């Protein structure tokens, strides 16, 4: 009769959420992604460093629910070492899979993760075009 996990979260989500990696900001980032909807309880920032089209470093800040925090932390890790194109190609299902499955009621977090990657990369492109 003991709970199997909060919200039926996978152990991976619970771990990520209690001790998220990549928390923080990068002082001179090549791109910053924002997904901001504080009226819906969400405010996310993703900082990336890019070298030769490869994302070499990622950090994040998140105001959001537990699943959001876990997801964004995971996303920040997933894109490290990937090319920009590879990062943009990451699907919601891949994000969910990396967390051993988001519960259905939290699938929107994966979408937020994708939007955040796009936003950061878009910003980096804008910057490099200047």
């Amino acid at each position, binding site marked *: 009769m003991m709970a199997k996990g909060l919200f039926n979260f996978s152990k991976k989500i619970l771990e990520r959420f209690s001790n998220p990696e990549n928390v923080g900001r990068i002082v001179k980032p090549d791109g910053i992604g924002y997904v901001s909807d504080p009226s819906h*309880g969400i*405010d*996310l920032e993703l900082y990336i460093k890019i070298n030769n089209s490869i994302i070499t470093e990622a950090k994040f*800040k998140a*105001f959001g*629910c537990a699943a959001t*925090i876990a997801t964004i932390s995971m996303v920040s890790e997933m894109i490290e070492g990937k090319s920009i194109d590879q990062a943009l190609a990451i699907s919601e299902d891949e994000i969910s899979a990396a967390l051993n499955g988001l519960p259905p009621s939290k699938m929107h977090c994966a979408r937020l993760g994708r939007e955040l990657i796009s936003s950061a990369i878009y910003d980096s492109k804008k910057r490099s075009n200047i």
Partner: protein
Amino acid sequence: MKRIYLDYAATTPTDPEVAKAMLPYLTKSYGNPSSLHSFGLEAKEAIEEARGSIADSIGARSSEVIFTSGGTEADNLAIKGITFQNKSRGDHIITSSIEHPAAIETCKFLEKRGNRITYLRVDSNGLVDPDEIKKAITNKTILVSIMHANNEVGTIEPIADIAKITKEADIPFHTDAVQTFGHIPVNVKSLGVDLLSVSAHKLYGPKGIGALYVRKGLELTPLFHGGGQENKNRSGTENTASIVGFAKAVDLTIQEIPTETIRLTSLRDLFIKGILEKIDDTRLNGHPQLRLPNNINVSIDYIEGESVMLNLDLEGICVSTGSACSSSEHGPSHVLLAMGLPREQAYGSLRITLGRWTNETHIEYILDSLIKIVTKLRAMSPLVVKVKNIE
């Protein structure tokens, strides 16, 4: 892991004595109360005894108490029952914007079907102003429904003052007393109400049983038709065991109100003082004095309630938050918004409700955990720098 339950406003454990009182009515005195033979009669008698003692405890007569499947049914029966019954007299209902969903969603449903609803504003402490009710009354008003105390922020409403107004205007007045019954004195006479909802699982009774007080002379359209039980107001085979358990829970709990009020108020205030002192940018939601003895509701800036709640849960502490975050439902508590909190703050709210098994150690433990968790989450939060310009 040892768990500390601090969500007594959501539900309470059934008192083992209550469970013990229920058991014989499951396996032994199991007759259908409508049956005319001895098995039926003994069930019937148990129900009537329970009805009598619950009625007594709220200053009502037995015949004024209708058993329901809980507080939600009681609220629905009161609001829909009066509305349907008085269709020819009027179509206007006055309620507040901080009612429990059982009342407010019922009003919204009626609104869609053509009723007119006034959802009264509340002040920043969550108080309804009786004068606003006076102003809202029209000659088409058929019901006023204002809760006795709010389930989220614990504010106790001026029910007796409102009752004076509704009595003068001769309009039925319903109060949802689900959060107060068993916690502070509830008496239909001194409150002056015509209908009053209660639910057993909020006072150490079983889930799935509640009651609606309906003043003698007031007629309702039932929600359930059928065998005509509950004086034709609520058909369906009576839940004997739960009714008996409900009465037992009332018995045990009401006795304790005077001592529990003192004990819980002091624990409550200890916690409130602690959090406001030890964590920056926090504030108490709800009325500081006119407040349930067991209710704490605080906003913690820059972080989101659900993530605080889950972090606490990982440490074995169960509390509640005014913010829910799921793909299907978004949005912070309608109560906090109605009280004027900015949405971000409403998202950072936590409800901690105390009960019979809460002690000072629990309060200290949750304070300590909370400090750690808030520090960690604020370190992640982009709002901290935005708002305070620090990093």
